[in-house]
């Protein structure tokens, strides 16, 4: 790592780290909500992110709608897709399970089902939007000049939007009764059923909320990075990685993990080039030696 780094570069790397870190945080929060609520590891999550970006393109670039409106619509659209995917796939799958179905059995089948879903979504997106890269003209093309450094406004907007969404999410999960229900279900679904609440619709809500977050993440990032058919594949790896590092079931861990990975990748790519991904992956494995549950997650025993 170069020790003689200009402060300008340093700030740029930090901003970059925060940018991608905040996107990872949104993605992992979405995945975690689904995982904790329904115990399903949704491999299609990355594809929902890609779909969010494409739909953002549709609304903002093609239909020329207002930026904020497009973003909201992308989130809602993906929430809908998420709800439908639960209704169409996982709800039916749940029927197959009996009381004596083991945890590993359920996990495997639902994960595989989500892989099937991912394949369908991926190819479907490809067929609808074609294989070339798409680009969105950023509504925030300005570059800020702070002393020596040049920071693109787009990145700051991304960070700002992500933080805003996180705050809204926090308020929803911890201050509303709906949020309390969602959290209760992840803790003890049986107890919630006993209270007379139909967990079925809570699961749908988990999927809608989680998928909506992925869609928002995709929509937010769309003006900054190009939209490619493989963006879903790429992001799902890092999303899983952050989930693992931060610890499953800890929101604070997710934020810590997202920021950590963002920092590592941002600085890593600058100084290590293409080897960065590998180094980061290996670092994560090392972390797991000392903290089996992830940084802040439920320890594995």
């Amino acid at each position, binding site marked *: 790592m170069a020790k003689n780094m200009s402060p300008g570069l340093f700030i740029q790397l930090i901003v970059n780290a925060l940018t991608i870190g905040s996107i990872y945080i949104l993605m992992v929060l979405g995945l975690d909500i689904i*995982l904790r609520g329904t*115990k399903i*590891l949704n491999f299609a999550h990355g594809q929902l992110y890609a779909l969010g970006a494409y739909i953002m393109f549709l609304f903002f670039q093609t239909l020329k709608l207002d930026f904020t409106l497009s973003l909201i619509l992308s989130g809602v659209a993906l929430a809908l897709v998420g709800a439908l995917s639960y209704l169409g*796939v996982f*709800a*039916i*799958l*749940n*029927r*197959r*399970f*009996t*009381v004596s179905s*083991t*945890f*590993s*059995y*359920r*996990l*495997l*089948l639902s*994960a*595989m*089902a989500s*892989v*099937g*879903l*991912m*394949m*369908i979504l*991926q*190819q*479907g997106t*490809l*067929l609808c939007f074609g294989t070339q890269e798409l680009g969105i003209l950023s509504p925030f093309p300005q570059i800020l000049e702070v002393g020596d450094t040049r920071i693109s406004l787009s990145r700051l907007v991304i960070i700002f939007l992500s933080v805003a969404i996180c705050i809204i999410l926090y308020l929803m999960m911890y201050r509303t009764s709906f949020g309390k229900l969602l959290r209760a279900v992840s803790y003890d*679904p049986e107890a919630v*059923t006993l209270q007379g609440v*139909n967990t*079925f619709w809570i699961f749908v809500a988990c999927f809608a909320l989680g998928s909506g977050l992925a869609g928002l993440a995709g929509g937010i990032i769309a003006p900054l990075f190009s939209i490619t058919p493989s963006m879903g594949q790429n992001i799902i*790896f890092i999303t*899983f*990685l952050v*989930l*693992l590092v931060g610890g*499953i079931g800890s929101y604070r861990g997710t934020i810590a993990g997202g920021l950590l990975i963002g920092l590592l990748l941002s600085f890593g790519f600058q100084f290590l080039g*293409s*080897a960065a*991904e*590998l180094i980061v*992956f*290996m670092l*994560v*494995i090392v972390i*797991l*030696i000392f903290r*089996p*549950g*992830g940084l802040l997650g439920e320890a*594995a*025993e």
Partner: protein
Amino acid sequence: MKLPNSLKTDRVTRYKWIAIIIVLIALIVLPLCIESNYIKHLLIMACIGAILGMTFSLLFSSGLITLGAAAFYAVGAYSSTVLVMNAGLSFWAALPLTLVFTAILALGFGAVFVRNAGVAFVIITLIFAQVVVLAAAQADFLGGWGGIMGIPRPNPVGTVNFAAKTDYYYLILAMLLLVVLIYNALYSSRIGRAWRAIKLSPKLAGTLGINEYRYRLLAFVIGSTTAALAGCFYAHYSQNITPGAFGGWLSIYVQLYAVLGGLEFYILGPAIGAVVMTFVPEYLRIVKEWEPIITGVILLVVILFFPGGILGTLKNPPALSLNKFHSLYNRLVTGKKRDSNS
């Protein structure tokens, strides 16, 4: 295979043995009846797939879901290649060395991985598979993204010089049968029973004195070493390897073999799944564009409606379709899921 049922009559056991012998003879005679090299190639790939699928089932038998089969498959392939091409060993010497090396590697990484419960284990093995691929791609002496070409054939044994696909077929068949024997011995011993106990109820297994961690680690090491065995073969069969051949998709396909064949059948399931997944797509030459969608749809259909896989569905044919429509109608009308599950 299922654990021996205490109520099996002699007649059933006799039929089983007759069936096994018939299948064995068929497998041995098969390549002599086939002209096409391409089909022989598919057979060989199916055998490799079967071995990999069985390693998945081995871990699954103790409750671990792994996406890391591809990782050790790659380790085996690359290790053997390096030992033969750089260290000048013969294939037959490189093979056991590769297995030992992989076992040690699996022990080291497994000790860390197995500490992580369910979902974390899936993710960590997936990440590990990526790590292996990236490491192979980054390392110049492993050929980078271009991989290694011109890997020599296995050294001749007697008159067999591995110029013909048939020779390779018998080698992989021998490996497959060895794996089947070993795994069957494991499953029918108290090791296999301990795995099953851990899978069905880790809590109860603990109170019976079964060390969950140690048994799972054992499964991980055995499974990984087996995958490396297949990798060794693959390197010297296809004679060139690239990191891309071992990517994340491979691990998912391995899982698919097991699920398609039938999760409860630890040996036959992956075998049947591998055969189906290797041959059927070749005969359904669908438009390339639609292929992932078709695969995805098939995957969903199997999981949603035939979760027992091929063998499972044959064993327990599903209730009449009336049931399905009734529940569908139920859901549409009342909006409520018929309870009784999770």
